[in-house]
């Protein structure tokens, strides 16, 4: 088990800089998820921790060793790849035993360790099969087995669930989380799926374009996003963002939206009148209220438990999530009330959160 400390890490490909001085730390036994859109540098960062990519500048420490110049095998890590990268010509047993053989463990030890890992992952019956004889979920488990058999200090996962169907993905999500609880190992997990990030991580690192936008627990990030990017990236459906300018009316600040409508702003906001801002309202913070604003339903998407409704208030398009099956008809008018007390405000130029 070990801490992982990343300090001012830069990655260049020739002239192109893809990571611009990233710093983060993962404490011993923590499950940290790196999340962000494609091309944000999350997989590159993970591969740098693994030793598969060189480090252009900065330091990566695992435990109390700087590992910048160490080979992957010297870093005491294991990695699960998106494609699983199982050796097609080896049985499940041989796949799992490969690293132990290279480490010159005794036959007896290898058998014990492989059997133990197989038991944890429910693979005992599949040990003599080849990867091509396994289902997607089983291959996934073998890839994890290959990682845990070595008992590494840090586990690295590179989008391991993205090749699975939706149902299996949810199941494996639970299995990986259970594995983390059982092993208590440090795990760093890369995904572009914010739902995976929210449900699995002890902490989330949100990245965009080679920089870290925010680090925190899933609920911290959800409840107090540091900027409008994080606000719209985390949460499904995305947060509604209304562009406008802050105005002062009757000693109270309001948002004069670009479409001319006026929206209330949270109280005690530390912002001057005339500032261009974005008002952020989560879809589940829009409530049905006969005394509220008139809205027109444009698209209604029932998910069973909830109903997602795309609605238009004035000229502003918003998404609302309502429990159960609200009495809303397509193209008909109904009334909604955004909960302003839970709304977020971001500077429109810098995108940064404006607090109280």
């Amino acid at each position: 088990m070990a801490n992982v400390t990343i300090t001012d890490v830069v990655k260049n490909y020739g002239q192109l800089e893809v990571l611009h001085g990233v710093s983060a730390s993962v404490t011993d036994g923590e499950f940290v998820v790196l999340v962000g859109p494609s091309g944000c540098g999350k997989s590159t960062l993970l591969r740098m921790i693994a030793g598969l990519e060189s480090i252009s500048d900065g330091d990566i420490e695992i435990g109390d060793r700087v590992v910048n110049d160490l080979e992957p095998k010297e870093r005491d890590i294991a990695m699960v790849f998106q494609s699983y990268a199982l050796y097609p010509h080896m049985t499940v047993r041989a796949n799992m035993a490969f690293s132990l053989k290279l480490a010159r463990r005794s036959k007896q030890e290898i058998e014990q360790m492989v059997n133990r890992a197989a038991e944890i992952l429910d693979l005992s019956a599949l040990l003599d099969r080849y990867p091509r004889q396994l289902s997607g979920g089983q291959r996934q488990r073998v890839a994890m087995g290959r990682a845990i058999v070595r008992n590494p200090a840090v586990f690295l996962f590179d989008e391991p669930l993205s090749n699975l169907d939706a149902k299996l993905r949810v199941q494996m999500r639970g299995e990986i989380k259970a594995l983390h609880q059982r092993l208590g190992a440090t795990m760093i997990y890369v995904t572009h799926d914010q739902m995976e990030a929210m449900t699995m991580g002890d902490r989330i690192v949100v990245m965009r374009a080679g920089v870290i936008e925010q680090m925190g627990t899933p609920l911290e990030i959800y409840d107090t996003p540091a900027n409008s990017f994080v606000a719209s990236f985390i949460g499904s459906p995305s947060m509604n963002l209304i562009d406008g300018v802050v105005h002062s009316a009757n000693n109270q600040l309001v948002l004069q939206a670009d479409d001319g409508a006026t929206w209330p702003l949270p109280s005690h906001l530390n912002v001057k009148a005339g500032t261009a801002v974005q008002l952020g309202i989560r879809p589940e913070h829009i409530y049905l209220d006969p005394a509220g604003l008139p809205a027109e339903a444009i698209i209604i998407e029932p998910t069973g438990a909830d109903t997602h409704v795309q609605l238009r208030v004035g000229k502003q398009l918003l998404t609302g999530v309502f429990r159960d099956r609200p009495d809303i008809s397509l193209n008909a008018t109904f009334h909604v009330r955004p909960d302003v007390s839970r709304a977020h405000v971001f500077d429109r130029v810098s995108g940064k959160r404006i607090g109280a």
Partner: protein
Amino acid sequence: MTTRAKAKADARRTLALDILNHGALALVALLFLFPFFWMVSNAVRSNAEVLAIPVRILPTVFDWDNFAKAWTTLPFGRFFLNSVIVSVSVTVITVLVSCLSGYAFARLKFPGRDKLLMAYLATLMVPGIMLIIPLFLIVNKLGMINTFQGVILPVAFGTFGSFLLRQFFLSIPLELEEAARIDGASRLRILVSIIIPLSMPAIGLLSLFTFIAQWNNFLWPLIVMTGADNATLPVGLTLFQTQQTTAWNYIMAGATLSMIPGVILAVVLQKLIYNSISLNAGMGGR
């Protein structure tokens, strides 16, 4: 026309097309087989009958003794052994060198790699016959005339194998190598334990081509090996040709015998080449 009648007509048309296709293929196959048939047919008749006009497709008397006579008249066993030594050595060296250089060209990063590959490939454009005299001079200078090294070494370092294996290695997912690196494997270990086992179809093909090319190689062994004892099979067979007579039936019997190892190898390796390991497995089923 009813649907059923239409289906019947379609089936008849498909059958007719199948017969036509297979007939054409069988005809071409027969054309290819004829030289082999002619060789065996001439191997089991008397020399007089080989040269007799009109030509007879089948011999009047099957003289199976020709095989034994061809084998014993000249040191055929020795020629056979020489051919095995030369062909196996060249094949082993070629596969070994091609694996190493193919891997280097596919995966290692070093300055000038791609330019060096182009230079390598350019040598494929030089006709082999042009190299005979310079190679002979070099081999002569090194004192390798009439030695196995002299026959083996100049032909064992071809470019084709490096290029073939490089192309095949490039098709193996990089993630497999990365997984092996994390598992603790060195470059050489990755090559031996991951890349080569996965490349057996290409290596099998290269082995087969190299072995058959060397088994049939005539000119180079003829030039380098001066003594009859050191002759390989193709060279040895020419000894049935003298200034006065040519024992065509013995040449054909010898040629038939000399084909056997190549045929066996082709049959054995065929399975390996066609039953290639599915690289798809373990790649997430994509």
